[in-house]
């Protein structure tokens, strides 16, 4: 489904200090592997999201490289322990140089 890449993130708006929260992320993307051919037999050039990073108040929380075997619309779910209020920042890097970002604040009390 060729659509614009749009990041989506689900995490709680509030948490208790020291609580482990679940973070779910999804970005719509074709993840064209570079292995496929079009009707005329030409290789369809690779275009994937090649890395994903999550930081909290500038500190790394989770990051990974992504390879062509990852299917369309990559979804990542991971846990993070939050000790203070702050902002989660998410970054997806596209092969074509585009960078998609998303930020969401959490209040910790």
């Amino acid at each position, binding site marked *: *489904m060729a*659509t614009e890449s749009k990041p*989506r993130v*689900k995490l709680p708006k509030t948490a208790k200090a020291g609580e482990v929260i679940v973070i*779910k992320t*999804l970005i719509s993307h074709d993840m064209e592997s570079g292995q496929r051919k079009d009707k005329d037999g030409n290789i369809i050039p690779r275009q994937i999201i090649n890395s994903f990073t999550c930081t909290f108040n500038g500190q790394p929380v989770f990051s990974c490289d992504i390879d062509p075997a990852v*299917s369309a*619309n990559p979804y990542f779910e991971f846990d993070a322990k939050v000790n203070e209020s702050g902002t989660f920042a998410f970054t997806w890097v596209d092969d074509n140089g585009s960078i998609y970002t998303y930020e969401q604040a959490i209040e910790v009390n």
Partner: protein
Amino acid sequence: MVKRISVATALAVTLAGTLGWAANADPVDEKLYIDDLEMITRATAPEGHPFDEVLSGWLFRETETRAVEADSFSNPAMLYVERGAEIWNTVNGTAGKSCASCHGDAAESMADVGAHYPKWDADTQRPINVELQINECRTKNMGAEEYKFDAADQVALTTYIKYQSLGTPVSIDLSEGEMQAWWGKGKELYYTRTGQLNFSCASCHEVSMDKFIRADHLSQGQINGFPTYRFSAANMVSVHNRFRGCIRDTRAEMPAAFSDELMALEVYVTWRGTGLSVETPAVRQ
């Protein structure tokens, strides 16, 4: 050598474990909540139904697959619902109209509508499903072209419209027009063996329901969750696509989508799922 034996033993234990599990594989006894909204996954069968209880295909799937459907954030099909909403609001055709121009907010105008299709269409004197209803609206009211079968926009818009009925029990009106006769025709097709493998729909989804066909746990073949996101396709699969896929697997010639045969089958198979919640967009293997 010792190492080799231990590997063989471990393998034997694994195999035995797998087989033991397969033999005891019942539909799970769990409830499905999609974003806290409870779905009816078990319903008392309507009169004349071969089963006592109608079961959603969700009950037959792996734990992980079930979990993906239960959270709309993790459900990849929600991207298609979003795309459907865009189409709903986009002007298309010579009349300068979008779906929303006449129908307004789909959350209101389409609420529960999808749970009661196929319906009798007096104009064409045959049953009409959501896909064909969209096409009729496009050609008659919007001055737009029909969607071709399984065009990405057809599937997305159908998914969006049926999603407005999420949770509503499936029921169709067989008293309208000649629906009863089409139901009968669909029933005949359901029990007719076809293809080189000589299977009818009932061979798998009635006689062998709850058994395994290789690694696949056979369900009742309900269509209350269609269009459905299937991991095997990494895409949405429409009802007629699935019908054709099943028929292809029996190595028979496939009737065309929306042909009389498949419309009759859709009427009958929808009736077989009477009482189950619409789960569109469901998630399957």
